[in-house]
């Protein structure tokens, strides 16, 4: 579905993208991982035909994107990072406007359906300016799906979303996958990618470092979960945490000398931890996952690779 050959993009001496070769199959959910500034958005822009490559070829569904960007746009949907809309227009108006670029038989019905899908049916006639980030993001997805695209580009779709929102978004992606769409999911958060993607590629400084099946990759990464915990009052005995963690690291942090902990776990067991501590009379002040950074993964890959 997506095929790039030696794709290069330079901005005044700086190589934003260096010899990118991608091959994504139809109905593949491809996670495109990389730190900020690694070239993820540049890649998507190139794939969408929104910018011209310095060299190389792009083919999407057999269409030469460089020569025929409009054709690509017709079959592709794009949710940009921090998607923007016309704030003075309502969600409906925005979508109606964008829908006009396609030949859609019943625009109204389509938009209603999409809004229903993304959960914005009730906010259809609200001005976008008043939307929260999550709402915008969902509207962005609706916008990307207006033309019932074969391929959907999602650029950091969950960044800045609350966990609930992010989870809901993941559901939508899963739904899209079921709909048979090819999904190009870019993110700098590994867990996001891992949750939805079958295959991933990791990009750093314009270069694709690694590409392949996510399971294989995670195996390779020898990954484990890290959970950050802070309670009120301070735990008297860390041993209560032993059943969950393979390793307990004590972090001295705040001004009052409260001890905080980083637990290394096999899986995400935050619910159990919270429950246990609550029953013991502790209030969980903070409890969140600490992802292994891509840098770490990257470094690990480098070290291991």
């Amino acid at each position, binding site marked *: 579905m997506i095929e790039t050959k030696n794709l290069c993009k330079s*901005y005044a001496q700086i190589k934003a993208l260096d010899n990118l070769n991608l091959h994504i199959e139809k109905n593949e959910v491809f996670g495109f991982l990389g730190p900020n500034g690694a070239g993820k*958005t*540049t890649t998507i*822009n190139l794939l*969408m035909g*929104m*910018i011209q490559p310095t060299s190389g070829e792009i083919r999407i569904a057999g269409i030469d994107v460089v020569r025929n960007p*409009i*054709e690509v*746009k*017709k079959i*592709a*949907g*794009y949710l*940009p990072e*921090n*998607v*923007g*809309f*016309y*704030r*003075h227009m309502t969600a409906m108006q925005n979508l109606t*406007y*964008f829908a*006009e*670029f*396609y030949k859609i038989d019943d625009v109204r019905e389509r938009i209603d359906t999409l809004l229903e899908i993304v959960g914005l049916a009730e906010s259809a006639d609200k001005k976008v300016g008043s939307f929260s980030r999550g709402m915008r993001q969902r509207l*962005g997805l609706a*916008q*990307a799906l*207006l*033309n019932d695209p074969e391929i959907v580009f999602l650029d950091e779709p969950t960044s800045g979303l609350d966990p609930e929102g992010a989870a809901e978004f993941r559901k939508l992606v899963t739904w899209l996958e079921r709909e048979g769409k090819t999904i190009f999911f870019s993110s700098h958060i590994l867990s996001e990618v891992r949750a939805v993607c079958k295959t991933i590629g990791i990009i750093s400084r314009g270069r694709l470092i690694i590409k392949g099946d996510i399971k294989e990759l995670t195996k390779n990464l020898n990954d484990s979960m890290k959970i950050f915990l802070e309670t009120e009052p301070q735990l008297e005995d860390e041993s209560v945490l032993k059943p969950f963690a393979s390793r307990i690291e004590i972090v001295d942090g705040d001004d009052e000398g409260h001890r905080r902990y980083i637990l290394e776990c096999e899986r995400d067991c935050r619910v159990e931890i919270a429950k246990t501590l609550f029953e013991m009379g502790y209030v969980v002040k903070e409890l969140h996952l600490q992802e292994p950074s891509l840098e770490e993964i990257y470094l690990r890959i480098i070290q291991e690779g």
Partner: protein
Amino acid sequence: MSIVAKKEFADQISSKRFLALAGVILLITVYTVYQGVQGFYNAYTAGMERPFVSIFGISSSLGFMTFGAFLGLLMGFDLVTKEKEEGSLKTLLSHPVYRDSVINCKAIGAFAALSIAIFLILTISLGILLLYGIYPSFSDVVDVFKFGVLTLAYTFTFFAISLFASTIARNSGTALIIAFGFLILFMAILPIFGEIVAQSIVGPPPRPPSVPPPSMPVPPPSGGSAPVVKIDEGKMPAENEEAKKLWEEYERQRDEYWKKKRAVSDTFSILSPTTNYLALLSSLGTRPIFETKDTTKNLIGFIALPVIFFILSYIKFLRMDIV
């Protein structure tokens, strides 16, 4: 193509800025027309012929000249920057639309909005004139139409300037500042600068000869029917002849000097849409009774400026990094 234009047009006519400024212009124009009607009446009853368009207060700069410029400016300065700020441009461009059509349609939408505003303002003014019993002749209507076209071009010039500012600026605030900078540059600085440049190029004016000018026939005092004094040329003394030659030479040089200086300063002021607008308008108001000033240069400058700015905006927009 028409999709973007339609949206842009709708944006323009729905914006409070546009409505407020067009409303202000409408009010000023209606007031000017009301005053113009009085003046027209007074002139008419005094037996003087006044160009019909003068009713629209060509000389009064407030209506279209100042607020029209503002309108054009405020319609354009954030067209690109706002989309960039909102991120809507990127979203838009992800849909099958050509980039150039976006900028073109922005211009078309603004142009249409301006056209309708000017058209309606002038139509309402004409309606008011009819209420006062002033029947425009066909040529009057043509003049008013020309007036409208010139005004459209004038306001669109400022739109083009601010659109350009919008394409080059990082944000709307900067764009507004840049646009106003251009406005001031074209309206005030350039003519002054032209004067200074002309002065430095042409140098000081020629000095009059040290000899006193030869006696000239005394013109009869105005109003009186005093006989014109005839000078017996044959009796003019020789030194007077000399002085006459010197003075004639001086007058020739002086005229040449001013012509040259005018040419240089005109070159600069031709870049000023306001100057051109006024020049073209006054040529519109005149009938062959008066000496018609050649306004070709003004017309060229008047048309060239918005075109140049639009082309610049176009190029800049196409090359713009949207990310």
